[in-house]
């Protein structure tokens, strides 16, 4: 493949680019502009997903999958994990604490982008174009060779960089653990297991009974009742004066007054008054 003929963009690729390109850009802008931290993270996820699809479209499926698994799947989830702990309603304040900070940040950002862009443009200006087949030709075509080509480069030419990056990440993770670890003498604090076993050694492994729920009171001050009508002492809340709940007035239902006919004064018992009168007592 000659360098000049290498730039051929298929229709599908162009369509994907013109759909996902604006989406990726919108994600980046939304990430900067949205007030809510979680919304920012979600916009960033959109950008990363679009980048992953770009990789796949440009015949680098392995990179695309790794982009989605590692960046969107692991790193951004960890970000979200922390952001959710911050609290739902903590939005960015719009008050500028440093005067002129936004203008300075915008200018510096544009300057940095120009610098990086120019540097990359200069560095890649005169590089010979090898073409996809020249880099990752495999038995199954350039797409299938992607995995082998990356593996061969990672484990031969860039082995040292790969290993050093791995070591750096491990050290960072272990360091963060060491910094956040609180030193305690062993045995001075009981864990979930010890607490659970200690609880089962008492007479009451289960939770305390709750306050009573009555027709006239559902307050925590109303004690629960035992089956015999007494008050369950365990259900009394500490620090609250227990309230004696007045019992509801005597009911006017069938249980107290008998059948409706009896209540109305009818003399002849009906079929439903007779226990077992209808279908041998099995009224369901």
């Amino acid at each position, binding site marked *: 493949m000659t360098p000049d003929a290498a730039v051929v963009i298929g229709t599908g690729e162009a369509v994907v680019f013109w759909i996902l390109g604006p989406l990726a850009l919108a994600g980046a802008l939304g990430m900067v502009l949205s007030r*809510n931290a*979680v*919304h920012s993270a*979600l916009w960033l*996820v959109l950008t990363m*997903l679009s980048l*992953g699809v770009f990789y796949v479209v440009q015949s680098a*499926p*392995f990179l695309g*999958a*790794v982009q*989605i*698994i590692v960046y*969107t*799947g*692991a790193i951004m*989830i*960890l970000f*979200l*994990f922390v952001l*959710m*702990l911050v609290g*739902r309603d903590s939005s960015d304040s719009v008050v500028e604490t440093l005067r002129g900070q936004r203008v300075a940040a915008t200018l510096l950002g544009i300057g940095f982008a120009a610098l990086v862009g120019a540097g990359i443009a200069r560095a890649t200006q005169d590089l010979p174009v090898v073409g996809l087949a020249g880099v990752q030709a495999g*038995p*199954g*075509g350039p*797409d*299938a060779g*992607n*995995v082998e080509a990356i593996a061969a480069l990672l484990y031969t030419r860039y082995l040292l960089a790969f290993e050093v990056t791995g070591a750096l990440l491990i050290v960072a993770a272990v360091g963060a653990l060491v910094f956040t670890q609180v030193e305690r003498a062993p045995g001075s604090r*009981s*864990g*979930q*297991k*010890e607490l*659970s*076993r*200690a*609880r*089962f*050694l*008492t*007479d*009451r*492994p289960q939770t305390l009974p709750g306050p009573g729920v009555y027709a006239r009171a559902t307050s925590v001050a109303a004690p629960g009742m035992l089956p015999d009508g007494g008050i369950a002492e365990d259900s009394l809340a500490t620090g609250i004066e227990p309230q004696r709940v007045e019992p509801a007035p005597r009911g006017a239902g069938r249980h107290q007054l*008998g*059948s409706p*006919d*009896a209540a109305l004064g009818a003399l002849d*018992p009906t079929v439903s*008054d*007779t*226990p*077992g009168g209808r279908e*041998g*007592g099995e009224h*369901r």
Partner: protein
Amino acid sequence: MTPWASPEQPTLADFGQDVWWIVLIKVVGVFAVLVLMTLFAIVLERKVVARMQQRIGPNRVGPRGSLQSLADGLKLAFKEDIMPALADKPVYFLAPVIATIPAFVAFSVIPLGPVVSIFGEQTPLQLTDAPIGVLVILAMSAMGIYGIVLGGWASGSTYPLLGSMRSAAQMISYEIAMGLSIVAVFLYAGSMSTSEIVAAQADGNEVSLFGLEFTGPSWFAVLLPVSFVIYAIAVVGETNRAPFDLPEAESELVGGFHTEYSSLKFALFFLAEYINMVTVSALAATLFLGGWRAPWPISIWDGANSGWWPLLWFFLKVVAALFVFIWLRGTLPRLRYDQFMRFGWKVLVPVALVWILVVATMRTLSREADLSTGQVALFVGVPVAVLVLLGLAVGARSANRDTRLMAEDAAAGGVHAADPEPDVLPPAGGGRRPAGTPSRSEGGFPVPPMDLVVPPSPRLRREPVATDGAVVGTGRRTTPTTSQEDGDE
């Protein structure tokens, strides 16, 4: 290209060349299969769990209750859609969608069968495949976490937030173990594409043992048992199923991440959970159980691996895997959060890492010493496996020594089975117990009284009803002359 190349076995070059209507048929087919499998799995789960709990289960809608999940789904769709006042509206709306779409997409790389003829077109029974096929599933399961995490966060309520925090930690942890367990399969199959992994399990290795030639097993579940076990455990955590259903633990978190959801949004979460179950079951069948290829006694028949028959073998394997999911749910209690995390990080991940090392070493050995895979597995793998199993057995026996002694004591009639060396702190504020009265819970967990007699069933107590038409009483039920309600409504 490969020794197992046959016209039925699709290669990577077969994909991406279908006519558009074939693609459309496959897309609709995958969608329909997933929805139907979800409906089937829900009914199967309810029936099987009911049998395990000595109940009957759903038996009203359809023949033997088989349409119950369809009725439930329709009912769910017509319920009121409640938007909590504190909800973050766009995210609350998006979360179920984010949970569902990756679940559907992940199934697109699962091979359902060999190359078949659909209306005269030769095409593989698989929507698509890529050199990184399995990574697509991993990526999609990673995206599915967002749905759960965001759903819990956007609800603006405490229990969903707790559930989503748990699920974020849990699914990331178990995804690592799951990914590591698959690595050994990649090493053996020499590919990450699902169709080639199935192809790699086509033929067993020829092993000659003491002059006897026989064909070894070809399933990776047999060749790589440790990988299979780790995968099976990790996907249960990954799909939030019991005993790892901490994100939605209904006795602790009400419903976890979907507490505030109702109507179709809840239905989408439900759908995503069951589709994930089906997908990981299908992936287990593909990676470890030979994919759509017929199991041994059937594979003797020549036509078993061609045409549409493999669809049957594949779905039988998937249903078997689903049954294991349900079996686990009906058997095991939920783990505590600290036990769960310790198990994931301190057992599954290290074991998976060591196992990858062992597999890679064996592969290198077989290549250097020019041995076949089967010979290496036989002469190195089996002794190592026996050693490891012996070690595990001895270790487990010594670790459970106290429990075993207590069990023997209890079996010999001991009432107060006591831990010989209780490694517990003294009970906090244990002054409530009256002195002198023995407690049944002394030294461990409470035991029910051993001398209980089961009371006779109230139904047996029912007396014959007086049927001679005598007027009994005046209607006030003061004299219980005849049978009373049993209260078994």
